[in-house]
């Protein structure tokens, strides 16, 4: 069994193990969940270390015949694009699990679904066979449904089913696209690398149709306007740990899919689609930011800011150049770190105050200096403050896209301003000003929460100052991918 399979299987073993433990032994269940997620993280860390950054081709490839009738293989492998996301997934899942130790009801089920979710996410990022990719892609759906539906907020059931239906619709269309690709390849294959080679030979109209089918599937995950309406609801209703995963990893699956496959395999369609994509990206950026500005609910604000940030990501993709794509990938990773930690932080305050209404607070900085400090750092990172992780990705996205779409990019900068505006307003209302005595009894951030949040903050700073250790991983792969389209 190769390293990648091991990475995917480890959480699965954990999940099954948890299923076997009686539900009353909560400590044990938590322990198992932590151990297996930590093990997965270690393995991904090892993957990161063992990964040869100078090689652009797929590494750690393992190919086993699975369904020869359809020429379907169990084929996994990673390149610079996926390695980063795999590591991110491992990290965020473990931190989310640590944070989720505050879950008190139905612990067994929670961690079972959570680890199962991790299997799906990791699988998506390592799969090299489109069928396998699709299976993992859908595998994330069900655990997420239950995680939102059981442990979520007041409108959890509605949020859960909406999420499920939206995503399923997209992914089934994607399935049709995949099938169309399959039947147009010679010999019929689901092998992504092979399809990428053959896709460009398809006639233009066919490429466009397939591209659109795939795009809808990916766009719903991203979520790109106008498919984003599931997102605020799902994010807000989900329990904290799940929101983190949702924003930190799941959204990346969409952009990852587009970059991994749609662009390189369907170059003609990509060129055709670019003018639309840039418009969508700009709408995401500006519209997402404005929507966030209107929010009174902290979590919803962060959720809409995700719409905005994924807009940057798409903006970077429209560049069709190494700069923009580097930015897009970096943005994926940093958004995972930053928004993930923001959801944690919002969770921290919600756990204490049981409200997320921005107007309900005031002056918390005086009382909770550590919490306020962490929050301000991450907010600054989110609004693209240089020196923190958000900036580099964002800047590269803008820089890359500017070459091709200068005027759109100029409009898109409004998003930066509005993001700054709503985040600062939030800080002003929540942390600054006179202290609201109503919250005098609250405690500052606790140890468990620190353990979950601080690594993300540190990484935010580290990547901000020294993006090399991320970009070195990505750059060769991206250059290669861009080369394929041109």
């Amino acid at each position, binding site marked *: 069994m190769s390293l990648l399979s091991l990475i995917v299987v480890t959480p699965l073993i954990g999940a099954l193990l948890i299923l076997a433990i009686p539900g009353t032994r909560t400590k044990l269940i938590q322990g198992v969940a932590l151990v297996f997620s930590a093990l997965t993280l270690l393995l991904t860390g090892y993957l990161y270390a063992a990964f040869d950054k100078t090689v652009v081709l797929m590494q750690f490839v393992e190919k086993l015949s699975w369904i020869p009738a359809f020429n379907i293989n169990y084929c996994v492998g990673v390149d610079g694009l996926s390695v980063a996301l795999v590591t991110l997934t491992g990290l965020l899942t473990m931190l989310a699990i640590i944070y989720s130790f505050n879950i008190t009801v139905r612990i067994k089920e929670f961690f079972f679904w959570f680890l199962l979710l991790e299997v799906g996410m990791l699988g998506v990022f390592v799969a090299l066979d489109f069928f396998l990719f699709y299976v993992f892609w859908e595998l994330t759906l069900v655990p997420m449904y239950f995680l939102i*539906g059981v442990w979520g907020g007041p409108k959890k059931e509605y949020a859960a089913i909406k999420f*499920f239906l939206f995503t399923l619709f997209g992914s089934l269309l994607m399935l049709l696209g995949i099938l169309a690709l399959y*039947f147009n390849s010679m010999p019929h294959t689901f092998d992504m690398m092979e399809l990428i080679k053959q896709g460009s030979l398809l006639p233009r109209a066919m490429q466009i149709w397939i591209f659109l089918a795939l795009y809808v599937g990916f766009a719903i995950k991203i979520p790109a306007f106008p498919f984003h309406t599931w997102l605020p609801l799902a994010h807000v209703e989900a329990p904290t740990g799940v929101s983190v995963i949702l924003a930190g990893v799941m959204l990346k699956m969409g952009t990852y899919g587009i970059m991994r496959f749609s662009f390189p395999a369907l170059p003609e369609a990509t060129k055709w689609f670019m003018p639309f994509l840039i418009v969508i990206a700009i709408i995401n950026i500006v519209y997402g930011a404005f929507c966030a500005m209107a929010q009174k609910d902290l979590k919803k604000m962060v959720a809409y800011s995700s719409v905005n940030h994924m807009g940057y990501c798409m903006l970077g993709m429209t560049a069709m150049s190494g700069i923009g794509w580097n930015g897009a990938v970096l943005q994926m990773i940093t958004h995972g770190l930053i928004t993930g930690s923001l959801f944690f932080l919002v969770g921290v305050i919600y756990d204490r105050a049981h409200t997320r209404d921005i107007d309900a607070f005031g002056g918390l900085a005086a009382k909770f200096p550590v919490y306020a400090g962490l929050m301000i750092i991450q907010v600054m990172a989110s609004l693209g403050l240089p020196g923190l992780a958000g900036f580099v990705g964002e800047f590269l996205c803008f820089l890359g896209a500017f070459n091709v779409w200068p005027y759109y990019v100029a409009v898109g900068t409004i998003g930066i301003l509005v993001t700054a505006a709503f985040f600062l307003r939030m800080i002003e209302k929540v942390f600054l000003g006179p202290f609201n005595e109503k919250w005098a009894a609250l405690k500052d951030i606790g140890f468990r929460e620190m353990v979950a949040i601080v690594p993300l903050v540190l990484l935010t700073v580290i990547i901000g100052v020294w993006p090399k250790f991320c970009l070195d991983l990505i750059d060769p792969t991206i250059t290669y991918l861009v080369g394929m389209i041109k």
Partner: protein
Amino acid sequence: MSNLILLNPEIILACAGLLILLAGAFIGESRAKLLFHLGTISAAAVLGMVVTQAVMAAYGNGTMWVLDPAAQLFKFIILLATVFTLLLSVNYHAIQPRHVGTYTALVLWASCGMMFLSGAMDLIYLLISLELISISCFILTGFEQKNPRSAEGAIKYFLMGGLSTAVTIYGISLFYGATGTTNLFNYVSSVDLHFNDPAYIMGMLFILVGFGFKISMVPFHFWAPDAYEGAPTPITAYLSVASKLAALGAMMRIFASVIPHYAISSTLVIAVLAALTMTVGNLTALFQTNVKRLLAYSSIAQAGYMLIGLVVADPIGRESVFFYALAYLVTNMGAFAVAMVVAGKTGSYELDAYDGLARRSLGLSIVMVMFLLSLAGIPPLVGFVGKFYLFASAVNSHTYLWLAVLGVVNSVVSVYYYMNIARRMFFSESKDVSAVETDIYTAGVIFVTSAATLLMGLLPETFMRIVKGCVSFHS
């Protein structure tokens, strides 16, 4: 005539039914369960025979019937469903001990009819098999004599069945008039002659009605929800699986194999009906509050999906139907089994019976979610592979891509009501928190079907190969 040996399984099954009927008259009520066991064993034995035949590649044909891999596949499916049904019936409360013999015999005869049906190469032969199925199923549906729902379901089933049989027979008579034969062996050579013959066209359409009724194709599906709801639950499962799949198999034989594809002026009609079937089934299912009824509508929709492959009718289309039939067999059986267990505990088939089931029995809930997701077509379960196969055939055909798109939309709709059950199990609370026990027979069925649901989803290759081997009808 020596070929009759190939029909041994059917003959033995019919005789077993007769014997069990007789035995029922002599065995005391307290030991009536023995009859179930006998029935199960004989069905299993016949299943063994069928498998043996398949393994030994014992194929052949008579004047009116044929034994080809496709027929064997469907016989296999039918017998498996029969075994499951009988196992589920063992502890079903509404079957009185004194009627167990009758019940078992009727199930076996119905299965026997289905087995004949799957090899039918003559319309009269086919008609008689259909009647055997229908008549047995009418009686089985109304088996809970004290239950007005059961009686009502049966009579509605019967009346719909009567009309459609009448129409079908009239269709066969027209077909006979147009072609001079009811035999499908001889028919092929002369198909071009009466391609535009109104009697032929009308005849085919009328015959389609008969099949449409059996597989509950819209708009001939109206009996299904009512009969399913009224029938004893094992019979509901049996109707939704065995009866439907057997008819589908025969339909495949006629509409997707025997008659050359180009010669079916009704392909477009079937395509439209397939679209209608999945859409109406799913949309109506959205509003059901009774699980049996919900599953009834869901199985209507499932028939719609399967018709995609029938419409496409090229080898991959046929394979996809065969595979989906297998998938549908295990999944739907399992779902009904769980529904039975829950109803056995709560005494209700209403959806609220599922409230908080996850708290009461997590394993059962997870298994049920698995079945539901498989029906909805979510990987890595077998339902997904089946749907994948079906959609693949549609995408491959280009002409019927729209059916695949519609299928996609419908799958999304279906998730809503499938997950609604899951929602109740996992998200809602119930007053009663006592654990739900499962008896050994039902547990066995649930275990086997759930294992198959998962394993066939993860490792479908073997089954795909089997299905590929079955794809060429003898004709």
